[in-house]
Structures are given as structure tokens and as C-alpha cells.
């Protein structure tokens, strides 16, 4: 059985301690993170393939040029990904501020 100290139960999950719920929630978030990172990786790979790899496929090996392009492409994609995230949070924050000021009028 569980040897954890029971904090007060949640009304939504009767019989569940709050600590157990946090744990379940953490697990969901961790799984979500893996899924999201995998998706990001797949899109990154696809994007850089389009940008850097000739579709003539003259050979199976990466040319020097393709390899260098890929390195730069990955670096740039990750940079753009970060900037998009920052921009999104900024814009959502602006939206929320606007809504809040509208409601208070």
C-alpha cells in the first residue's frame, strides 16, 4: 500500500490524496512533453530535408555541402522555434491584458 502522508482529498477524485493527483498530473505532462518534442523533431527533420537536400539523389551519402547546410539548418530551426515561442507568449499576454482592461471598463 501507499506510505505517503495524505493531504486533504480532492472533491473531484474522492479517495485520492492531493499528492497522488499531482503525481498523475506530472506524468501526463511528462508524456505530453515527450510527444511534443518528438513532433518538433519530426518537423525539424522534414524542414531541413526540404531546404538542404537535392531531390536528384545522385548518391546515398551526404555531400559536404548538404552536411554543412543541415548543421546550420538545425541551428536556425531551433533558434526560430525559440523565437516563435517567445512571440506567442508575448502576443497571448497582450491579448489577456486587453481583455482584462476591456472587462474592467
Amino acid at each position, binding site marked *: 500500500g501507499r506510505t505517503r502522508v495524505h493531504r486533504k482529498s480532492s472533491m473531484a477524485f474522492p479517495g485520492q490524496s492531493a499528492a497522488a493527483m499531482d503525481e498523475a498530473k506530472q506524468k501526463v505532462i511528462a508524456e505530453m512533453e515527450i510527444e511534443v518534442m518528438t513532433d518538433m523533431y519530426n518537423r525539424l527533420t522534414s524542414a531541413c530535408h526540404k531546404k538542404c537536400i537535392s531531390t536528384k539523389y545522385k548518391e546515398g551519402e551526404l555531400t559536404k555541402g548538404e552536411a554543412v547546410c543541415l548543421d*546550420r539548418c538545425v541551428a536556425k530551426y531551433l533558434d526560430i522555434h525559440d523565437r516563435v515561442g517567445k512571440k506567442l507568449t508575448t502576443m497571448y499576454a497582450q491579448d489577456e491584458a486587453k481583455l482584462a482592461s476591456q472587462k474592467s471598463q
Partner: protein
Amino acid sequence: NRSSDLRRCGQDRSRPVKTAMTPNQQEQFEMHQFKDFLSTYNRLSEICFADCVNDFTSRNVSSSEDKCMSNCVEKFLKITQRASQRLQEHQTLQMEAMGAVPSPTQPPTKS
């Protein structure tokens, strides 16, 4: 706190919640919205990268690429908002046609 900022994103506070949800449903709904937001984030990165970045002589993002990315994100959000408005209008019309919802006495507001 970046992660809590990200968690708040994607929650549409402009529409009031019409039906009551249990705390459990509310939490699941928020999780779903958060997941949705993350998925949009990934798609948006891919789109804006594809359209804005074409110079691979360097690994640094240039200021013009950065400006393009910024405009790309703004446009995308406006696209989703506008498409959502049009969709709501369309669905309202459909429901009126089916007789499920009475026609409004005033003309629809323009936005």
C-alpha cells in the same frame, strides 16, 4: 516563469463557459487546450521557418528573418481568429436554417 506562461496560452478567455464543468472536466479541458497550444506552436514554427529562412550560409538568424518570423506569427494568430469568427457565423447560419435557433432580430455585428 516561462512554463506557466506557456500553460496559460491557448486558453480562450473571451468566450464565457456556458455549461458548468466538474473540476475534473475543467482540468481535462485545460490540459487539452494546452496540448492544442503546443501542437499549434510546433506547426507554426515549421511554417514560419519554411517561409522565412532561406539563407544557409550562416547559422545565425538574420534580422530580416527575425522580422519575417515575427510578422508570420502575428498573421497566423489573426488568421486563426478570423477563420474562427467566420466558422462561428457559418455554424450559426446552419443552425438557424435547421430551425434550431431563432433568427436574430438585429443584423449581425461586423468585426
